[in-house]
């Protein structure tokens, strides 16, 4: 952000969600009983496909909606379940921004300050500070309908943080923007959240956004929490098939355990590849002949020189992505694999990556799971 906002006196808030479910009047259960702890000062990303309950959970924490009887929301240990949003001292950024069209940019940002009863000169100073921080000071007197999407987003952020909320809630704030602007604003929001040090809850369906912004990520599906963890844990130690597939591409090779490797149609993957840290804690090593599954991310496999690879397959297609080349390989497992290779290779002229060409892969690290699990 433009000016360096110094850390504010507002001590960050710890939030506890206890047994909160939400059933809509039409009988749809948007959220199953959820328990969740949000640590003071952390940015927690709620990630999941549309309809997974992430926005419902955010609205419960915000106070825009209330949990089914039995659920409780605690702010620093204080039960706020019955309080409406206007009495929870939170700041919120909406997907549609929800800026007031009857007010100028400055009046929008001043709205919350006026309600707090801040004196006019202090208010003006704070508004100026916020607008400068979001680098929209020249827009202060503009009407909302004269702003671009990215500018509206900045106003919405400035408006939400101006009253120094104890908790900042962001509901898919970047979804309405185009890709390039989204990337730029994502970096800015990240810097802003770190600088403010406020506890923040960030709802998104974009896994890249969640991993970039979240200190921890909560992956949700069908109204439940599928996994809570750091972005690294979510990506490399997914708690299940859903999480593995939702946060990125996951290759799976089915085979049978034989000696020190896993035998599959394309060859034998040595068990050493499945590093010990990737073994589920406490899992017993299954016996020989047991059906197992190897999982690995595209970047965990490298293209090997002939004779050097673990497994052999056939290229079905390859795509030049600019910074890397994505190769689809079949014949190794039951389903096609996706692997990626860096460097300056042009798949259009390089015969080794042409469709039908044989290819050998070395798999560098892959967690092993009994078949059907994970």
């Amino acid at each position: 952000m433009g000016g360096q906002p110094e850390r504010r006196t507002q001590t960050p808030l710890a939030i506890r969600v206890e047994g909160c479910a939400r059933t809509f009047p039409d009988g749809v259960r948007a959220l199953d009983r959820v328990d969740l702890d949000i640590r003071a000062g952390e940015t927690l990303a709620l990630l999941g496909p549309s309809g997974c309950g992430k926005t419902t959970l955010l609205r419960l924490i915000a106070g825009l909606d209330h949990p089914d009887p039995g659920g409780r929301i605690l702010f620093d240990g204080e039960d706020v379940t019955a309080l409406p949003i206007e009495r929870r001292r939170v700041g919120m950024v909406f997907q549609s921004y929800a800026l007031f069209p009857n007010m100028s940019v400055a009046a929008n940002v001043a709205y919350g300050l006026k309600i707090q009863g801040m004196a006019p000169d202090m208010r003006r100073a704070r508004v100026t500070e916020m607008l400068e921080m979001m680098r929209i000071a020249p827009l202060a007197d503009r009407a909302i309908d004269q702003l671009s999407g990215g500018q509206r987003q900045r106003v919405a952020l400035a408006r939400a943080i101006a009253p120094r909320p104890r908790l900042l809630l962001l509901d898919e704030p970047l979804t309405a923007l185009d890709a390039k602007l989204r990337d730029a604003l994502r970096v800015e929001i990240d810097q802003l959240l770190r600088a403010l040090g406020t506890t923040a809850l960030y709802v998104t369906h974009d896994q890249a956004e969640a991993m970039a912004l979240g200190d921890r990520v909560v992956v949700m599906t069908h109204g439940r929490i599928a996994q809570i963890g750091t972005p690294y844990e979510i990506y490399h130690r997914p708690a299940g098939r859903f999480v593995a597939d939702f946060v990125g591409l996951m290759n799976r090779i089915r085979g049978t355990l034989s000696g020190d490797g896993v035998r599959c149609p394309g060859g034998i993957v040595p068990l050493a590849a499945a590093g010990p840290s990737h073994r589920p804690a406490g899992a017993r090593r299954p016996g020989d002949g047991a059906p197992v599954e190897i999982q690995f991310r595209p970047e965990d496999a490298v293209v090997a020189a002939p004779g050097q690879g673990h497994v052999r397959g056939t290229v079905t297609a390859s795509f030049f992505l600019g910074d890397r080349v994505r190769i689809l390989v079949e014949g190794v497992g039951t389903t096609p694999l996706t692997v990626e290779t860096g460097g300056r290779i042009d798949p259009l002229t390089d015969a080794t990556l042409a469709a039908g060409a044989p290819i050998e892969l070395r798999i560098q690290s892959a967690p092993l799971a009994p078949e059907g699990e994970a």
Partner: protein
Amino acid sequence: MTRSVFRFWLPLGFTLLVSAFLILPVLLSVLAGVTLNWQRGPAGGLTFRWVAEVWGLYADTVLRTLLLAGATAIADLLLGLPLAYVLARHPSRKARLMEELIMLPVAVPGLATALALIILYGGWQSLRGGSVFILIGHVLFTLPFMVRSVLAVLAALDIRTLEEGAASLGAGPWRRLLTVVLPNARPGILAGALMVVTLSVGEFNMTWMLHTPLTKTLPVGLADAYASMRLEIASAYTVVFLLMIVPLLVLMQKAAAAASGGR
């Protein structure tokens, strides 16, 4: 650049023809209202005598009409604003049904609605004989226009999310209403009010059934004048009527443009 016959002159001619078709009867009527003697035509001399005479005969009717229109607008605001607000906040199937339901008095012939009102309230003599009875009919007929006009503006704004935004900044229900809902609904309120006043001033069918000789409105008086007085006076009545209704129509156009085109 030459203007093509088909792309310019023909459409222009057609437009003028349609306009003439619509406005000629009105113009003739206005002309008749300021002509000394219609048998001899305008050449026989123009006068405002008839207009003055109409004013003398019907001034109280004009006043009553305006008061009724104002009262209708106020009643519609009091009833229609909360209704539109509730419908906008809870966009459900039931809300849609409710919206259709309040449109009924517009679809049903005014005479039928009037008859229903007489059956319901007719026995109540003090009500039956007064202007309030007409007011009830006008509110019934015009309320949906107010509701629709306000509802359209509120729905386009996504008022629910705007209110949530205000609430997140600490605003309670009353403050949200005064600082966010009403200011943003203003174009719809204005357009709705002008529409309602215009409809009330011009309403005939229902009013004709509901009025008494002592509670005539402009359009009823117009029918009265046509039936019982010389053509010139009846036409002068049209002039008076137009003088009242045209400014309203112009304002309505402007308000509607403001409501749809943003500020």
